[in-house]
């Protein structure tokens, strides 16, 4: 379970907080979607939920972030790695660029954790299998489609052993087929107990995989509702996230 309790976060060099008073819980096996207009704080929320802010990029955090009930405040990125993973919107820029095959790319995290070669290979193959992309194992990472690359990025996080996954607009650069691949993969992960938090503009995708919908604006929570209620909420239109609310 991933929890944010009364979280406020300010980027280094800024006086105004990018997030303020955020309370959010993602239970095991649940997929929670985050929506909001540009500059609402969606990406910042993802960075805070994955503990990269402030651990990696600095800034000031108040409140608390908990993984399975334990606070992770003040921990360094490599101490959190393996407990929560993050996937970004651009498929290519999150791959290391220094590996020759997809298997090596997925294995980079377990290698960094200091696992034995046998354990690294086993974890990496299991992650590829979980996403149904084991056939890509020997392919060069820079020769994949956008959707495949994004799945490799997700597999790289799964191979770390992450049971909490945060995704920041993971389908932003993907075609419909790629979106479908990612959506199916996330549904499968949640089915196996992974807690998934996804910031996404595509309401169609969110409606097909999420259990709850969270809207934020100006760094503050607007609503946190079951997905069907959230999609019908008029405030989505006010925020510019939807052109019209889903009829009741």
């Amino acid at each position: 379970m991933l929890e944010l309790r009364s979280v406020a976060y300010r980027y280094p060099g800024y006086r105004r907080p990018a997030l303020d008073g955020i309370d959010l819980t993602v239970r095991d096996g649940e997929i929670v979607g985050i929506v909001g207009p540009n500059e609402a704080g969606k990406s910042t929320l993802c960075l805070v939920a994955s503990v990269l802010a402030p651990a990696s990029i600095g800034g000031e955090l108040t409140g608390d972030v908990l993984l399975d009930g334990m606070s992770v405040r003040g921990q360094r990125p490599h101490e959190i790695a393996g407990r929560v993973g993050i996937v970004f919107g651009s498929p290519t820029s999150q791959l290391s660029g220094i590996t020759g095959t997809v298997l090596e790319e997925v294995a980079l995290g377990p290698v960094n954790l200091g696992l034995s070669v046998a354990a690294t290979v086993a974890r990496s193959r299991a992650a590829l299998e979980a996403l149904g992309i084991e056939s890509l194992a020997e392919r060069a990472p820079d020769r994949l489609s956008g959707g495949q690359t994004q799945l490799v990025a997700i597999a790289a996080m799964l191979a770390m052993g992450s049971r909490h996954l945060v995704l920041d607009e993971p389908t932003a650069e993907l075609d419909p087929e790629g979106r479908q691949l990612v959506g199916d993969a996330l549904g499968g992960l949640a089915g196996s107990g992974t807690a998934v938090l996804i910031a996404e503009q595509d309401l169609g995708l969110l409606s097909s995989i999420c259990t709850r919908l969270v809207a934020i604006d100006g760094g503050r929570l607007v609503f946190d509702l079951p997905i069907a209620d959230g999609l019908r909420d008029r405030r989505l239109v006010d925020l510019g996230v939807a052109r019209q609310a889903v009829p009741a």
Partner: protein
Amino acid sequence: MAVTLPLAVAVALVSIFTQPGGNVLVQIGPLEATLEGLDFAAQVVLRLFVTAAALTLFGMTTAPRAFIVDLERRRFSPRLAFAVGALLETVPLVIARARTVRDAQRARGLYTEGGFLRRVAAIVPLVGPVVIGSLHQVEARSLALDARAFGRPGPRHMLWVPHDSAFERLARWLLILGLAAIAAGVSVGLLPGLP
């Protein structure tokens, strides 16, 4: 060569016309090209080409992936190994990004053809998007690597190590011994030193 040649020409011109000397070859206004300047320019340009040739040879014969793995295997910091490897891989990526930005700017009416001055002027609107885009990419990659425990201290068990044949090891030792012999020869006066 595309980078080295213009740089060499610029360095040569500056060297020829700024080095003081008694043997004036040509005078253009207040500037004098001297024989001493020409000699100095030849040495500088030669060093420039030797350095460029060494870097080119390194780039053409060394796969960044193998280089990084080997540095890590030799207990260098993974961050240092990645920084070196990323540097090797950055040039083609930046060139590709620059082409994309240039094509986008052309589609919006930017002239990138024509004389020297026009080409130089056309670089200005490309610099911002290329640099900022590259910085964004570096930041995203850095965060993604942090999430994969890249900064964790301690040993790693590499999945593979680059092939290192007996011939390659022998060649490396011969190069090191040759370098040591040249240094020794210069220090005792058997070989001419660098001017």
